C-alpha cells in the first residue's frame, strides 16, 4: 500500500520517459488474438499493455423483438461492460452511467464501418467485456469489437482502430495508461478508419489549447495506423494458415 502511494507522487514524465519507461509517442505492447471463443460468431482478445478487453459478436441474427428491427438495415446493439474484478476497487457489475455512455459512443464508432444494409431486419450484437483496466479501455474495446466483427464475417468498409491520446505534465502522449489518465491534464480517445481517413470517435476529457488539440489529432491518427497494422496482422495470422 505505502509503495503505491510513493508511486503516485512520482513525476509522470522524467527525462523524456514515462512512468512505464515509454517515450511520449510509444504505444504499449499490443497483443491481438482473433477467434478466442467457441459460441460467438466472432471474437477477439485485445491487450494494450495492462489493459485487457474481450469482444464477441453475435449475428446477424433475429432481433428477438420486432419493434427494434429496421426494414433497410441491421440494427447494431452494443454493450461495453467492466468486469467487477477489472479495476483496483471492485466495480459494481450493474451498468454505471459511464458504461451506458460508452456503450453509445462505441456503437456510434462502429456504425460507420459496418455495412448494415446487407442484413435488413436483423440485429448484430457486439459485447465488450473489460477484463483488466489500465487506461484506454474504450479504445481497446473498439479495436477488439472491430476484430470480432471481421472474424464474424460481417462486411465492413474498414477496420476501426482505437487509440487514446493524453496530455501529461504538459506533454502530449500516445496510448495513456490509467495512472497517466488519473493524474494527467487531458484524455482524448479516438477511433479511426485509417484507410478511409475517417474519425469515428473523438472525445476530450480535460483541457487542450488549439495547437495542442491539432497536434493530438495528428498523434492519434499516427497511433491508429500502428493499431491498424497489428489488427490486420492478427487477422492474417488467424486466417492465412490452413487447419
Amino acid at each position, binding site marked *: 500500500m505505502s509503495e503505491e502511494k510513493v508511486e503516485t507522487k512520482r513525476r509522470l514524465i522524467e527525462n523524456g520517459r514515462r512512468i512505464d519507461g515509454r517515450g511520449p509517442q510509444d504505444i504499449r505492447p499490443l497483443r491481438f488474438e482473433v477467434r478466442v471463443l467457441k459460441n460467438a460468431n466472432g471474437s477477439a482478445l485485445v491487450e494494450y499493455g495492462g489493459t485487457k478487453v474481450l469482444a464477441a459478436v453475435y449475428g446477424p441474427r433475429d432481433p428477438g423483438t420486432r*419493434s*427494434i*428491427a*429496421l426494414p433497410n*438495415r441491421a*440494427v*447494431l*446493439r*452494443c*454493450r461495453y461492460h467492466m468486469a467487477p474484478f477489472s479495476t483496483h476497487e471492485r466495480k459494481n457489475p450493474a451498468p454505471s*452511467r*459511464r458504461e*451506458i*455512455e460508452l*456503450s*453509445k*459512443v*462505441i*456503437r*456510434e464508432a462502429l*456504425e*460507420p464501418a459496418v455495412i*448494415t444494409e446487407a442484413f435488413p431486419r436483423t440485429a448484430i450484437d457486439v459485447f465488450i467485456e473489460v477484463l483488466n483496466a489500465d487506461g484506454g479501455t474504450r479504445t481497446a474495446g473498439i479495436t477488439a469489437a472491430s476484430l470480432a466483427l471481421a472474424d464474424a464475417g460481417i462486411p465492413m468498409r474498414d477496420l476501426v482502430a482505437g487509440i487514446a491520446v493524453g496530455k501529461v505534465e504538459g506533454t502530449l502522449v500516445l496510448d495513456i495508461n490509467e495512472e497517466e489518465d488519473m493524474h494527467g*491534464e*487531458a484524455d*482524448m480517445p479516438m477511433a479511426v*478508419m485509417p484507410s*478511409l*481517413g*475517417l*474519425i*469515428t*470517435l*473523438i*472525445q*476530450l*476529457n*480535460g*483541457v*487542450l*489549447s*488549439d495547437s495542442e*488539440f*491539432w497536434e493530438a*489529432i495528428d498523434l492519434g*491518427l499516427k497511433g491508429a495506423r500502428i493499431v491498424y497494422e497489428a489488427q490486420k496482422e492478427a487477422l492474417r495470422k488467424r486466417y492465412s494458415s490452413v487447419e
Partner: protein
Amino acid sequence: MSITPVDIPVIPALKRGTILSLLSRSTRIDGRSPSDVRGIEIATGVISNANGSAHVKLGLTQVIAGVKVEIGSPFQDTPNLGNLIVNAEFVPLASPTFEPGPPDERAIELARVIDRSLRDVRAIDLEKLAIIPGKKVWNLFVDIYVIDHDGNLIDASSIATLAALITTRIPRASLNQDKGEIVIDRTTLEPLPIRKKVLTATIAKIEDHLIVDPSLEEEIVADAFVTIALSEDSLITGIQKSGMGAFRQEHLRKAMDMARQAYSLYIKKISETIERGAQAPT
C-alpha cells in the same frame, strides 16, 4: 445496451434531399446560413425555490436548468472540494421519443458531456465550496430539464446551465467554533466562485456540409455531430462526437472555427441577459 435508434420519423427523413440541395447553395431549411445559430431567449431566476435557474429557448427548443445546493460530505479522494453533480432529464412532455423512467443513454450522455466540460478546467472553484475541509462541503446539483425538443439539446442545456450557475446565490455557511456546528446565514447570499465561462457549441455534418446549432429536422438527416466545449480564454475544455457517421480531419478544422463563432454568439446573449437582470428592480 445501446441500440441503433429505430424511432426516426419517416417524413423528416424524406427532407434530406431538400436540405442537401439548399445546403449546396449555403442556405438552410429555415433560412439560416450554415454558421447561424437560432434566436436565443434567456430568462434567469425563473424558479424561486432553486438557488439559481435559467429558462432557455434556442429556436423552439426549450430547456430549464435548476441549481440546488445542499450541505453534504466530500468524496474520500477529494476531501477539500465541494461536489458538482450534473443530471439531465428528458421528460416525456418534451418529445414523442422521450419516455418516462430513468434517464436513457441520450440524457446520460448530455449530462456527462456538460459535467466534463466544466470539471477539468475548474470552471467552478470547488475548493471554495468546502465549508469544513475534509468534513462538510456544498453539494452543487445542476438539474437540466428538457421541456421541448427541437434539436441541439446540448447547447441549449449548456447555455441554461451557465446562465443558472452565474445567477446562483448560496447562503453563507460557517462553522460555529463554540458549538462545533455549521451555521447557515440565509440572509447573506453569495455568488458561486465561477472561474471560467464554459459553453458547448454543436456542429452537425450532413455529407460534406457542416452546420451549427442543428434543428430537429436537420438532426434527423445529419450523419454525425461534434460538440466542442470552449472557455472565454479559447481553451478547448471538452469534445464529444456523436451520431452514426464520421469526420475527416478537415471537417473538424472547419467545425472548430464554427464552434468558436457560435461560442461568441452564445456568450454575448448570456452577458446581455445577466446585465439586464442586474439593472432590473428586484
